[in-house]
């Protein structure tokens, strides 16, 4: 099945119906393994047991940016290729991305209090992620504010692509500015600085959360397609009612004219 085939929403729905149970199962299994490995991971020599927050904070932080990246590609699909499912994908991803970003901020705060002595600091990394969260909320508000999905899609696509400028700022904020946040320790030139006992559970949790996103995203896309079907059928029903009542009024006025 190619990308062109998936342009047909009915085919896409059939594919998601087949895929979703497998994806959900794989997510549950990987999450269980990841959580087990995270529980077994040793305490850090400086941070003690609080290092366990890393296994949920980092996947959420990665996904907060990854989801915006997915939405940016979908936005290109809307503006350049006019793929019928591109704006469905972008709209469905926004609340999920907002949730992951909220969790990255919350778990980061809860990790920061015992380690840095503060829940919040207006430094470059924290502020740029907060801006990302606000942009997610802004996009969701935009989708709700415009009734016609195709008009909302174009405006949202432009806003998403403009907002993508924030992604490299978040990624490199720890290198460009002085910040409480430590520099990259996993995805960096010269390899990870994390010990294997932390790296393995972290990667397992990252894969599990990515699978969770894919599963939720496909399910949310399916819902959005169904919502648009409901909308178009309701419009069809409304126009039928308007047409038949118009025809009745015409008939009645002709009868009045004849008498």
């Amino acid at each position, binding site marked *: 099945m190619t990308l062109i085939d998936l342009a047909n929403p009915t085919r896409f729905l059939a594919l998601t119906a087949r895929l979703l149970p497998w994806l959900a199962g794989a997510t549950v299994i990987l999450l269980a393994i990841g959580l087990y490995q995270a529980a077994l991971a040793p305490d850090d020599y400086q941070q003690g047991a609080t290092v366990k927050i890393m296994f949920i904070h980092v996947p959420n932080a990665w996904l907060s940016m990854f989801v915006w990246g997915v939405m940016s590609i979908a936005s290109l699909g809307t503006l350049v290729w006019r793929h019928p499912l591109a704006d469905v994908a972008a709209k469905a991803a926004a609340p999920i991305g907002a949730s992951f970003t909220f969790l990255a901020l919350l*778990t980061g705060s*809860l990790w920061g209090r015992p380690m840095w002595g503060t829940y919040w600091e207006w430094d470059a990394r924290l502020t740029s992620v907060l801006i990302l969260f606000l942009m997610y909320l802004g996009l969701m508000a935009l989708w709700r504010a415009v009734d016609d999905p195709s008009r909302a899609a174009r405006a949202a696509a432009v806003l998403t692509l403009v907002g993508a400028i924030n992604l490299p700022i978040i990624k490199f904020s720890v290198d460009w500015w002085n910040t409480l946040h430590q520099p990259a320790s996993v995805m960096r030139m010269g390899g990870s600085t994390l010990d294997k006992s932390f790296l393995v559970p972290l990667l397992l949790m990252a894969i599990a959360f990515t699978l969770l996103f894919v599963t939720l995203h496909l399910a949310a896309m399916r819902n959005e397609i169904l919502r648009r079907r409901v909308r178009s*059928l309701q419009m069809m*029903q409304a126009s039928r009612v308007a047409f038949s009542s118009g025809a009745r009024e015409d008939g009645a006025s002709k009868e009045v004219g004849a008498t």
Partner: protein
Amino acid sequence: MMSLGPYASFIVTSYAAVALVVAILIGWIALDYRNQTERLRELDRSGVTRRSGRSAVDAS
């Protein structure tokens, strides 16, 4: 029993918050699916069908 040290409340709150938000997200998506399919069935029952003639709830 795993020992979480003096900052156990921060660790437990973090994991609980993630579990809660993910559960809300799953619940919201599941509920939305139920609502949309129910509305499509109602439209189907009232005789409003797609131009293709297929049932609006039909995914295949």
